């Protein structure tokens, strides 16, 4: 067993010249760099925190699990990638996810943009109560919205499945569309649309200018 001693006290004890100050050892150089760029180093740390779980998922996708659970790396394999549809109804589920996602995106974007447009460009009564109705779904935890929808569907004796999932997803995301589109629209100069209306037909003016 060897004992490694810290380098610099040793060398000074032997009377050797100290290393030139312009080239400190890597650790100290890193510390000095980190001191000068605290924010960037913290940001890099945050990024590692964000990416780490995905890296783990990618790594485990090449794993041959020892038991039922895929929690620790056991043996390298490509089998998971060669037949991704092998696991039960995996591919059906992915397809269903994509269908729901596409339809929910289209539905929520259409409904939400229309609301945002009305709120930004038109003045009418009941604005504040409409704003409240938009805000409440965002302030409600999903578990509450999901469970209340469940009681509605159960009491209406609606079969749970594709359509109930889609309905719920559009409802969850609608408010976020309204808020985002509203922020964009209110930053947009209405004169741009006026100009579009002056040069094109009304519908085309809205599509490309607003």
């Amino acid at each position, binding site marked *: 067993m060897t004992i490694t001693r810290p380098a610099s006290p040793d060398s000074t004890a032997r009377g050797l010249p100290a290393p030139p100050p312009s080239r400190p050892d890597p650790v100290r150089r890193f510390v000095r760099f980190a001191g000068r760029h605290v*924010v*960037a180093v*913290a*940001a890099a740390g*945050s*990024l590692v*925190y*964000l*990416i*780490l*779980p*995905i890296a*783990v*998922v990618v790594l*485990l996708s090449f794993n041959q699990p020892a038991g039922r659970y895929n*929690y*620790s790396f056991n043996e390298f394999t490509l089998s998971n990638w060669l037949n991704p549809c092998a696991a039960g109804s995996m591919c059906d589920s992915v397809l269903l996810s994509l269908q729901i996602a596409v339809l929910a995106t289209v539905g929520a974007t259409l*409904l*939400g943009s*229309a*609301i945002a*447009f*009305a*709120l930004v*460009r*038109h003045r*009418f009564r009941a604005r504040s109560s*409409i*704003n409240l*109705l*938009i*805000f*409440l*779904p*965002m*302030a*409600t*935890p*999903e*578990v*509450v*919205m999901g*469970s*209340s*929808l*469940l*009681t*509605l569907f159960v*009491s209406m004796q609606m079969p749970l499945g594709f359509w109930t999932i889609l*309905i*719920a997803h*559009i*409802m969850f995301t*609608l*408010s976020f569309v*309204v*808020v985002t589109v509203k922020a964009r629209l209110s930053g947009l100069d209405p004169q741009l649309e006026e100009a579009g209306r002056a040069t094109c037909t*009304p*519908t085309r003016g*809205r599509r490309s200018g607003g």
Partner: protein
Amino acid sequence: MSATAELTGADRPPKRSGLEAGKAHRNYIPYLLLLPGLLWLAVFFAVPLISLFSTSLYDPDGSLIEGYRMTWHFANYVDAVQAYAPQFLRSFLYAGVATALALLIGYPLAYTIAFKAGRWKNLLLVAVIAPFFASFLVRTLAWTTILADNGLVVETLRDIGVLGANGRLLATPVAVVTGLTYNFLPFVVLPLYASLEKIDRRLIEAAADLYSSSAVAFRRVTFPLSLPGVVAGTLLTFIPAAGDFINAALLGTPSTYMIGNVIESQFLQVTDYPTAAALSVLLMASIVILVAAYVRKSGTEELV
């Protein structure tokens, strides 16, 4: 204006004088635009909430099979609070800690992307959004691997003495808060980035011209101007985190369960609908009150 609106307006007999008629039929348009979306929210958000509220007042002696009787049983709320007060407090504690941590971790990242990233900006933004490309569940499960008892993190912490020889991270509050912070971090970084990006650099330069140190310039100029992002980010983290049950279920134990876990199991396993509904209403009410107070105090209208 759209063709349908024009038609509807034209079909309507003019009620007022000829001069006002044009304005009157234009008033139809906002309602036409609002109608489908608001109807959706009314039917699938407001009505279920009302029915949830009435469920919370049902006679608790009923069951899903026999049906429930409406008895205005307000005692459901008292029972629910008495039985599940610890889970309630834990939810707000974990969500609060996770929100504060996400802000601490997310701010440097958003700041770097907005001010220092240069040509790496877009790549870094993609990296922030990247977690969304994997499922919430899969990402949370990945933390069970990272924090596992024989994993690198736990062994390092044991070696340097932060954890005892048998100390563990998985199935502790630390794991749950780590998961919560991680899962909602992009929701802090993105609004913060949007706020920081909008700041006029000349204001910060002006602070430097007036002999302010960079720390003071940050405290007096940059940070106050990024407050809309701070408020939006903290709300987007706190609200879902307080109701979350996935992190506590996958990374914790029953002793770290949050109110979301109770609601989920009361609805789906115990099927005690009145208690579950009472808990849901309480959770929603407390979050809405907290959020309204916070938004008023921070004085921003940006989110709504």
